[in-house]
């Protein structure tokens, strides 16, 4: 019974995640192209993309290596860009924390913006889901996208700079994320969180090592939490 419903949740996740092929494809291709241009061979580019599996951090590392930054700075900056996945992991823990350790380890590897965003939307809309169902959904969301991301990297690495600039591969990611954010703005507190995060992000964009993202992310989280407290106090009868 649980097994069959878990299976159907896997497929729900799979199909919810399928359109993100349109993102993972171009984004992976772009990484492959840039990696080749930076002088990585196929084995290096593919090992990078498969073991790290974090687009934004990979781009950061490439860029900094290209600028001849010291290795330690490259690592710290790229991991700082990826700090947000630690917060995603924390945010998923109340929903997936009951699962066996090996499943949680696999889920950790698969924690990326898009699996996280889709899963949080799903878990919040259907609070009655069991942990196995949630886990199945989570893995489903990466079912197509992860292999596509890796194949697209390979394609980009092989094609190299023959991919025309007019494809505007750079802007596929912002559009995908904006599309994911809009449906999440369900309450005033969510709106406030997003608004504060954006304002701080634009003000703090000059901070080194991508610290701006971390600072603005946490500012947004605090604003949302505070707004929720204040709004619930106002609304609750005393």
């Amino acid at each position: 019974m649980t097994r069959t419903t878990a299976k159907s949740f896997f497929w729900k996740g799979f199909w919810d995640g399928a359109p993100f092929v349109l993102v993972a494809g171009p984004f992976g291709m772009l990484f492959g192209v840039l990696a080749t241009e930076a002088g990585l061979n196929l084995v290096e580019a593919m090992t990078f993309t498969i073991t790290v599996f974090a687009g934004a951090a990979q781009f950061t590392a490439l860029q900094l290596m290209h600028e001849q930054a010291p290795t330690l700075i490259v690592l710290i900056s790229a991991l700082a860009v990826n700090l947000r996945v630690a917060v995603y992991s924390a945010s998923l823990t109340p929903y997936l924390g009951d699962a066996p350790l090996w499943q949680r380890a696999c889920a950790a590897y698969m924690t990326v913006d898009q699996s996280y965003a889709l899963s949080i939307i799903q878990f919040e809309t259907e609070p009655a889901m069991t942990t196995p169902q949630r886990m199945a959904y989570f893995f489903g969301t990466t079912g197509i996208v992860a292999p596509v991301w890796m194949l697209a990297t390979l394609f980009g690495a092989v094609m190299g700079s023959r991919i025309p600039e007019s494809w505007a591969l750079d802007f596929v990611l912002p559009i995908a994320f904006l599309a994911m954010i809009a449906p999440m703005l369900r309450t005033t507190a969510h709106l406030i969180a997003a608004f504060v995060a954006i304002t701080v992000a634009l003000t703090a964009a000059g901070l080194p090592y991508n610290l701006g993202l971390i600072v603005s992310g946490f500012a947004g989280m605090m604003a949302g939490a505070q707004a929720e407290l204040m709004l619930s106090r106002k609304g609750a009868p005393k």
Partner: protein
Amino acid sequence: MTEAGFDPVTLWIVIIGMAVGSFALRFLFIGLVGNRAMPPWVLRHLRYTAVAFLPALVAPLVIWPTATGGQPDLARLLAALVTIAVGLATKNVIPAMLAGAAALYGLLYLLV
């Protein structure tokens, strides 16, 4: 292209360091905290993780796109607005993405 290559040792240190570091970041909470209860104030903050981090990640990319060397770009800005508008109107990810992509390519074609 060969002269742009990195020293292989440095490159592999970065690759291995990032693989280990990224996994550690992701495993930290879900693996180590697991099903232990977290205090309400932590949970309250975590509810706003997605709506804070994703916009913060995207906002600078929209205003200062990498492809134009950081110069604000009308096509990209309008495409972003279309995506948000359709997303808010439909509450649905897919139409928002498709509208945004259509707007981007349409405007790039018209404006360039």
